[in-house]
C-alpha cells in the first residue's frame, strides 16, 4: 500500500520533462494521471528511483481540430475526452470507449497519454485508436515524430515511445459521418475488458464501403481485425452477411487465458462482439 521511496520531479515544460528523463534514464517513471502507475507502485511491482510528473507541464492538455485532424493532448483526461463534443463529432467510437474506462473517479484523473503509454492490451484506448487510424505524436530531445497506430503498439506493455521520449499528443483523422460502436464485454462493470471491439463503418447504398475494426485484449497488443475488414467490404448491411464476415475476427489473434475467460472463449467472444459492433455502427 505504500510505494518504495522515490525522488519526485515536477517539470513545467516538455523540455524540462525531457531533460529530467534524460538525466534519470530508465530508472525513471513518468506519471500522467497515475491511475495505472499508482497501483503498481503501491504493490511494489515497480520501484523507480525517480517519478516525473507531467501534471504541471503546460500545453499537453486539450482537444482541438487541426485541419481534418482531431488533436488530443496527452494529458487530456478520459473524462474530458468522453464528454467532448469535438470527440463525439469526429471520433465517436473513442468517446464511447473512453466513457467505459474503469469508473468516474479514474476517468477524472486518468489521461489518454498515460493510458496509451502504459499500453495494457486490455485498456480501452487501443482498439478505437486502431479503428480510427490515429497517429501518436512522440517528442524527444531531437523534436517530434509521428507514429501510426498500426505501428505504435509493439508488445505487451511496450510501445514505439523510445527511451527519453514522451507521448505528447494523439492525432485522429476526422471520422465525421461514419458510424461507429464499441462493444465491451465484462463480468463486472468496473473491470478491464475481457474482450472489446471498436468498429468504424462507412455505409453507401446499403453496403459497407469501408470498415475498420480494433480488438481489445485479444493478444499482447491491441489488434486490427483485418480479415473482417476485408470480408465486410462491399457486403450488404444484413445480420447474416455481417456475422459471416465477423467469423474471421479471431484470425491472427493470440488472446490470454485468465480468470475471466480462456483464449478459446475470447476468440468466440471476438466474433460475436465484432458482429454486434459492426451492425450497430452500420445502423443495421
Amino acid at each position, binding site marked *: 500500500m505504500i510505494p518504495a521511496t522515490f525522488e519526485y520531479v515536477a517539470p513545467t515544460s516538455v523540455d524540462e520533462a525531457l531533460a529530467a528523463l534524460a538525466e534519470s534514464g530508465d530508472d525513471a517513471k513518468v506519471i500522467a494521471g497515475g491511475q495505472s502507475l499508482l497501483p503498481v507502485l503501491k504493490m511494489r*511491482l515497480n520501484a523507480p528511483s525517480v517519478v516525473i510528473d507531467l501534471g504541471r507541464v503546460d500545453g499537453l492538455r486539450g482537444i482541438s481540430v487541426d485541419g481534418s485532424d482531431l488533436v488530443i493532448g496527452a494529458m487530456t483526461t478520459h473524462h474530458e475526452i468522453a464528454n467532448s463534443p469535438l470527440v463525439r463529432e469526429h471520433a465517436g467510437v473513442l468517446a464511447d470507449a473512453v466513457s467505459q474506462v474503469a469508473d468516474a473517479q479514474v476517468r477524472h484523473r486518468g489521461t489518454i497519454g498515460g493510458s496509451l503509454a502504459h499500453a495494457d492490451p*486490455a485498456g480501452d484506448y487501443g482498439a478505437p485508436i486502431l479503428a480510427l487510424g490515429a497517429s501518436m505524436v512522440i517528442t524527444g530531445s531531437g523534436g517530434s515524430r509521428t507514429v501510426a497506430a498500426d505501428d505504435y503498439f509493439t508488445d505487451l506493455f511496450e510501445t514505439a515511445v523510445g527511451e527519453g521520449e514522451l507521448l505528447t499528443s494523439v492525432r485522429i483523422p476526422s471520422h465525421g459521418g461514419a458510424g461507429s460502436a464499441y462493444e465491451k464485454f465484462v*463480468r463486472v462493470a468496473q473491470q*478491464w475488458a475481457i474482450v472489446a471491439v471498436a468498429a468504424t463503418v462507412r455505409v453507401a447504398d446499403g453496403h459497407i464501403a469501408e470498415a475498420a475494426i480494433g480488438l481489445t485484449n485479444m493478444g499482447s497488443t491491441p489488434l486490427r481485425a483485418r480479415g473482417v475488414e476485408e470480408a465486410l467490404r462491399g457486403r450488404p448491411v444484413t445480420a447474416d452477411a455481417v456475422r459471416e464476415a465477423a467469423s474471421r475476427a479471431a484470425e491472427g489473434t493470440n488472446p490470454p*487465458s485468465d*480468470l*475471466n475467460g480462456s483464449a478459446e472463449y475470447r476468440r468466440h467472444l471476438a466474433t*460475436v462482439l465484432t458482429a454486434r459492433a459492426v451492425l450497430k455502427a452500420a445502423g443495421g
Partner: protein
Amino acid sequence: MTVVDDRPATEVGSPRRRKEDARLIVGRTRWTDNLTLPGMLHLAMVRSPYAHARITSVDADAARQAPNVVAVLTGEDVKDIQGGLPCAWPITPDQKAPTHPSIAVDRVAFAGEIVAVVIARSPGEARDAAELVDVEYDELPAALELKAAAADQTLAHPDLGTNTSAVWTFDSGAAGTGGDVEAAISAARDGGIVIEREYRQQRLIPAFMEPRSFVCDPTGEQLTIWSSTQVPHFVRIFTAAVLGIPESKIRVIAPDVGGGFGGKLQFTPEEVITVLAARHTGKPCKYTETRSESLVSAHHGRDQWQKLTLAATADGHVTGLKVELLADMGAYLGLVTPGVPILGAFMFNAIYTFPAYHFTCRNVFTNKTWTDAYRGAGRPEATYAIERLMDELAVEVGVDPLEIRERNWIRHEQFPFTSVCGLEYDSGNYEAATARAKELFGYDDLRAEQARRRASNDPVQLGIGVSTFTEMCGLAPSRVLGSLSYAAGGWEAASVRMLPTGKVEVVTGTSPHGQGHETAWSQIVADRLGVPFEDVEVLHGDTQVAHKGLDTYGSRSLVVGAEAVIRAADKVIEKARVVAAHLLEASVEDIDFANGSFTVRGTDSAQAMAEVVWAAFSAHNLPDGFEPNLDSEATFDPVSFSFPHGTHLCAMEVDTETGQTTMRKYVAVDDIGTIVNPLIVHGQVHGGIVQGVAQALWEEAVYDDAGTLVSGSLVDYTIPSSADTISLTVDQTTSPSTTNTLGTKGVGEAGAIASTPAVVNAIVDAVRHLGVNDIRMPCTPERVWTAIRGASGSGGPSTAAAASHLGAGAPNHDPDSGAATQGGAQ
C-alpha cells in the same frame, strides 16, 4: 396517556432512522486504524510466498539495520511465548489438527502465512524493512485440490499422517429422528426416483470493506487491544488463554467496525502478533492490513464438494436424502472452522418433511488459507444443494418447481414441527410467503414469456429460479452447543442503567458492525421503559463496559441479545415498581406500569419513571431495606433455535451467444417473525441477497497450481458494484417466533442463504431445454456458454486458465473450473 406528540405508538415496528448514521455520514468515525497513540509503532508482516515449505533460515539483519526499525520478530524469537491459536469447536473427540502458530517457526502451510514482523516508527519504514527480510525456504509438495487432498495424495501437514481432520455423521435412523436412508434409496430405485448430483461450493472471501486493524497499548495497568473484530469478548478470553496473560489485565475494544460477515469472527495471528510486538517494545503498536493481505490471510468461506442422493416416489414425494460432504479446512483450524459444515448438517432437509436423512462430512486439510464462518456458515451450502436438487426433482416429475416444493414442505398447520434432524421448528407459513412472492413476481406472466422465448428460439433466453429456504438462527442454546462439543455457550448478556437525569444506558454483549443495534435496542427499550427513543444510549464492544457477552454472528443478536436487553429492562421495572408503590403509598401488587408511568390501579395517582429514577438516586425516601439502585442485568440462554424462512424468486436472462447473464427481477418474501425496524430489516435482506448473488455469479477464490491465490486483489476477486446489480422487491409475511418475548427470528443471513440457489436455478432453467442441468458457480459467462455448447454437442467443456490481471503472465491452472453437464436421474 403521556405519550409524547409525534412518537410512534410503539417503537418496535417503526422505521426509525438509525442513530449510528449521524456519525458515519459525516466521517466522525472511530475505525481502529484511526487511532494514534503517543510513541506508536507500526507493524509490517513478512509473509510466505509458498503454499508449503520448510523455513531453512530467516535473515533479518538488514531489516534490523534499516532506518527507524525498532525490532524484527521471527518465529524463532517468539516460539516459546506465542502459544497456539485456538479452535473452539472440536467436532469429534479424535479430531486431528496441527499446532497453529501466529508466526511460523520452521514450516509454512499456506501462501500468506506470516514468517516475521517488522516493528518500525512509520508504516512506510516498516514496509521498506520487511522487504529486506531474507527468508530461505525449501519448498514442499502442497495439498491443493480438495478431492486429491481427501485421498491423501499429498499431505498438507505430513506429521498428521492424513489430511482428514475429522469425519462427522448424523443418521436419522440411528438418532431415532427418522427412517433409514439406504432403505429409502433402495425402495426408490424400484419404480421411484433417485437423483444423484454433485455440487461445488466454491471458496469465497468475506471481503468486509474495512481491512482488519489492531492496536495494542501495553502502557497502564491493563493491556488495551483495539480490534476490528466481531468478537471482542472472544479476543479477550483467547488473548489470555494463548499468551498466558490474566484475563483481568486485558481490555478489548471493538470500536466502529466496518463489516464482518463472519470474516471477523476470529482470533487472528495478527492480533497475537500486535500484542507480542507491544509487549516486546513497551510501546503502543498498530497493524493495519492491506486489502491484498486481507484477501490472502483473513479466513475464507464455503469450499465444499457436496454429493447428494435423493430418493422420491414417482409423484415426487421425497422419501430420503443422503448427503456426503468434503469440506476444505484450509491449512489450519480457526475458531469455528470444523463446525461450519456441521451448522449445515441440520439444514439439508430444509422446509421439507423428509422422513429419512443421512449426513456425513469429511473435514480435510489443504495448503490454502484456512476457512471459517462466512455469512450463513454451513446453511447457505445446505440450502444451495437442496434447492438445486428440488428443481431437479421437479424436472424428473415434470411439474413446476414450486409444485414439487409444496408436495414436500411442512404445511403451516403442522407447526410446531420436529424435523428429521430432531429440531423443533416453532412457527412458519411457507404457503403464505410463496403466495405473496408469486404475486409480487408476476410468476405466471414470466413463465409465459419464457415459453414464448423458447418457442421463437430467442438468443436471449429467460429462466425462473426458486428458493424456498429456512435457516436455524439465534445461535445458540448452550446445551445444544455442548452436545456438539462447542467450547462456549450461546447465551447473551445485557444490562440497563438508569441515569439520574432520566437517560438510559443499555449495555449489550453483542458487538454490532453495521447491523444497527444502537437503533434497534433503543427502540425496544424505549417501548419497554416508556422513555423516548432519543434518551436511550446503547453501549457495546468494550469489555470494560460490556464485560460479559458472546458477540455478534449467526443471526443471534436480536433473537438472543435483545431478549437479554428486554429481561434486564423488565427487572428495572420490577425494582422501580417497588419504589413507585412506596411513593404512591400503595401495595406493589396494585401498581401498573405502562407508557413510562406507574399508576395505582383504579386511581388517578401516578409516578413517572423519571420521578422514580430520581427517587432511587436521591435515596431520601425509599422502602426500608431497598438497595438504592434500579440498574439491572440479565443473561438469556435460548432453549431452541429460531427458524426464519422465505420464498425467493429470481428471473435471469441468458445471452446464449456469449453466456452473459443478466438479472431481470428478484422478489424476496421472508418470514423473520416480528420486525423491530423494517428499514433495517430491508437493508439486511438487500445486502444478504446481493452477497448470495455474488456467489452465484461473480466471486471465487482461485488458486493456481503452486498454491498462490490468483484472485488476490479486488481487481481479480470480483465483488459486484451498483452497476452489476438491480433493485430488489422485498416483502415480509409474519409468523412470530414462540421462543422469545418479541417473536423475532433473525434476518442477518437470510438473503445470503436464499439467493444463491435462486439465481443458479434461474440460469439453469433458462438453458435447460438446451440440455443443461448444472453450471458450476460462479456461473461466469464462459461457464454458461461452455455448458450450452457442451450440451448441444458442438464441443467439449473448456478448461479456463487462471491468471490475475496484476500478475499477468504467470502460468496458472485451475483444476476445479469448468461446467458440469453430467449426472442424471435414474
